[in-house]
């Protein structure tokens, strides 16, 4: 049972445009959500997070939106840069438990 789903295996975007990565979850007990970025042959690195008491969190070019009623979150990257090309994992946690990860979305930013 996949509790965290990233339904788009890949996304291709032109440099300078917006990248939107989506994530859906099924467990209503999740209260903390994170995005990780992963380059080949490296471990995932933390990008941005949001708690369930917020609906938006920004950090530079990265913004995460949370829609609790729809059990949906998204990551917006504006403007997209070639160095953003990587695999992006969505993850969620219920307090006191472990992170559950989605399958990942491969982002390719074309210059």
């Amino acid at each position: 049972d996949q509790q965290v789903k990233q339904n788009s295996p890949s996304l291709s975007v032109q440099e300078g445009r917006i990248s939107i990565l989506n994530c859906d979850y099924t467990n209503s007990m999740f209260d903390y959500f994170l995005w990780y970025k992963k380059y080949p042959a490296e471990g995932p690195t933390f990008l941005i997070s949001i708690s369930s008491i917020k609906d938006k969190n920004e950090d530079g070019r990265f913004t995460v939106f949370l829609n609790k009623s729809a059990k949906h979150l998204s990551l917006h990257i504006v403007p997209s840069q070639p160095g953003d090309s990587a695999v992006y994992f969505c993850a969620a946690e219920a307090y006191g438990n472990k992170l559950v990860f989605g399958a990942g979305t491969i982002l390719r930013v074309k210059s």
Partner: protein
Amino acid sequence: NAGVTQTPKFRILKIGQSMTLQCTQDMNHNYMYWYRQDPGMGLKLIYYSVGAGITDKGEVPNGYNVSRSTTEDFPLRLELAAPSQTSVYFCASRPGTGNGYTFGSGTRLTVV
């Protein structure tokens, strides 16, 4: 700042062999985790630990064992390696719940 260090980076095992994947962190984090990542799949939790002397099973623990004798180290033991254990293994740590994980760079294991 070393963070989370995993060794080895690559390993080829024959079916039935055993090995230990090493993981050490220097951030004094209480929580440590082992995940595996298969192609096209997300990260699946194998085992985790909330402190020295405490370990618990994750989603896919079969074929693996762990120990946590110190805060710094969390080795993962594979007994009787099988082709299904071919994967990339990631160790991670964090200070407590509500924080993101810090990951190691991974161990790519092939069982032939």
